[in-house]
């Protein structure tokens, strides 16, 4: 009973936090990109337009909800729900702060604490592409969503493999699938990024692709296939797709920080909860900023080039890297 109540409380807190985060992120993206482009950005509502996302949300709730005539209605409704549920589920296992010791044992700042958190995240990240595929197919023969969904499907398959293979290296080195244990392993050594720079880079590239952000935002390339899979959506149903994307950005950044950058460990004041919290979020914020920064700077890859990068460059490198890690671990090279 205690566990269930705690779970529900944690879930509600997570829901509120994530919603606030997404609202803030829409403002942050617009403001930062505007400043990078020598513009002002949102400025009218609230302090420097800080309430703009709330106004936008209210507006999108009041918008007319258009369902195309030829759409498969059930699937059309289901697609954003599947997408948002799957993305949201990945956030369940992400620790939002370092664990603290209580009388009942360790208290974890994640909705569910599982020992195979990495597997959990990958299972649900894979599910998100179903939401997108459904959205594309359910739009009733509309061709742009269809192409967008095709792209998303191919992109997800190619890059999830790279993503998982890059994460295998820290897992091999820490002998664990649990985020807390992986972070703990990095307190004894240097951060894994120093042992595994190649895996770090492959993960970084695959991260952009899995989150479908520039320069890999092909499923929704607005200048080619006019926003791709959610062309036919309107109102809040449409808003759920970017909402989910922002959560994916957060989750992928958090995994990046946990796996390669030592999570909440920092160079000094080790063990202090608040210092660890600040370290943790500074690192995550940097990667979230990196997403925005790349959005403002880079053009977009082409579909075949995207596949080339995944299957011809990243995948062989990632596989070779695993061999190297396994070899080094087996013979006990001092680099580990």
């Amino acid at each position, binding site marked *: 009973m205690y566990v269930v109540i705690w779970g529900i409380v944690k879930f509600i807190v997570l829901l509120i936090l994530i919603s606030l985060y997404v609202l803030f992120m829409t403002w942050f993206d617009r403001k930062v*990109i505007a400043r*990078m*482009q*020598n*513009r002002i950005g949102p400025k009218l509502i609230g302090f420097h337009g800080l309430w703009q996302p709330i106004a936008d949300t209210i507006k999108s709730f009041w918008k007319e909800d258009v369902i195309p005539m030829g759409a498969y209605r059930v699937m059309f409704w289901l697609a954003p729900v599947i997408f948002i549920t799957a993305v949201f589920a990945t956030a369940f296992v992400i620790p939002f702060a370092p664990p603290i010791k209580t009388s009942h044992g360790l208290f974890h700042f994640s909705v569910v604490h599982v020992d195979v958190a990495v597997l959990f995240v990958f299972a649900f990240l894979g599910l998100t592409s179903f939401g997108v595929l459904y959205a594309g197919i359910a739009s009733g023969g509309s*061709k*742009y969503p269809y*192409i967008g969904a095709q792209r998303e499907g191919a992109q997800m398959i190619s890059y999830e493999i790279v993503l998982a293979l890059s994460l295998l290296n820290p897992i091999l080195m820490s002998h664990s699938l649990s985020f807390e244990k992986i972070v703990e392993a990095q307190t004894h050594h240097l951060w894994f990024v120093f042992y595994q720079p190649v895996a770090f880079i492959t993960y970084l590239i695959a991260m952009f692709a899995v989150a479908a952000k*520039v*320069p890999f*935002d092909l499923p929704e*390339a*607005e*200048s*080619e*296939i*006019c926003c791709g899979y959610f062309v036919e959506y309107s109102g809040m149903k449409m808003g759920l797709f970017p909402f989910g994307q922002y959560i994916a950005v957060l989750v992928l950044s958090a995994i990046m920080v946990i796996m390669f950058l030592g999570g909440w460990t920092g160079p000094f004041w080790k063990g202090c909860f608040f210092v660890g919290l600040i370290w943790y979020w500074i690192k995550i914020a940097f990667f979230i900023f990196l997403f925005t920064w790349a*959005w*403002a*700077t*880079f*053009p*977009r*890859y*082409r*579909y*075949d*080039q995207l596949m080339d990068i995944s299957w011809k460059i990243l995948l062989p490198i990632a596989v070779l890297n695993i061999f190297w890690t396994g070899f080094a671990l087996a013979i006990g090279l001092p680099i580990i």
Partner: protein
Amino acid sequence: MSSPDIRVVELNMGPQHPSTHGVLRLILRINGEKIEHISPRVGYLHRGIEKLAENMTYQQFTPVTDRLDYVFSMNNNLGYAMAVEKLLGVENQIPERAQWIRVVVAELDRIANHLVWLGTHALDIGAMTPYFYCLREREMILDMFEEISGARLLYNYVRIGGVAKDITPRFLDMLKEFLKIFPERHKEYDTLLTKNRIWMKRTKDVGVISKEEAINWGLSGPSLRGSGWEWDLRKKRPYLFYSDLEFDVPYFSEGDVYARYLVRMEEMLQSHRILEQCMKKVPDGPHIMDEFKKVSKPIKPPAGEAYGYSEVPTGELGFYIVSEGKNKPYRMKIRAPSFLHAYALPFAARGYLISDVVAIIGSFDVVFGECDR
């Protein structure tokens, strides 16, 4: 077993599409993402400008030429004015100061057009930021044009026999400031795009047009120079005083989107070079020939016909005017480079992917005010 016909999907790109630069409609037949056939449909912005010309006096038609390619209105005015002057036989009597102003505004307008082109082309390929940087510099040019002509986009400034109004001292100050700033700003776009590996991957070996094809397809301007033709009307058939100015005609033999991009980037610098040479000496004198000073006085060219052309940023803009000795043209045909470029698209984009079609449209700089007329 699926027959090949089932695999081919017909996709309607446009007339409302973010990157067809206005109202181009392309009916793509795609196999997967590969283009099998393109059928371009134009005419969604057709306003019957050629019919209007037959019912307007020569002076009345000048503001209408603004509406051809609204991104470089000055050059349209200039092309029209030169065609009528050729018909009248007064092309050698334009005052020196008017010629100077014409060259300056034409080159400024060329930079302005290439800036818009660069921004939108980058936006098509996914880079968002160059657009805003480009418009920032274009704003300076528009301010200059507003200072001399009173309008920001549709100037109605270059008239038959000269220009409408004399330039002001403030214009010269603004021009000096712009010339000082522009090269470093140009470098920024260069840093963002030219050597970027994504940009190169997206544009190199895409939309390759050979030298013979380029001529056969009727391409002109930077699109032709990207295919290896060193062909600039300002050099080959110098008008105004372009023969006295030093400038290079950039050309690349690759013929792909990247080559056309490089041509336009280099052309901006060459225009800057021309402007700096112009700034050395500002001739005095009248800004318009005396007989054309009054707009209400009718122009009656002798019966005959003339084809006047000029090098505008997109290519060769020509006006074929047939006169019957009245104050209205009997027939006016506008040779619009965009129209020919739009009809060259099915040949240029065949066999590439959907994403490449967008890049190729952008590289031709098709604007539909001019294409549809």
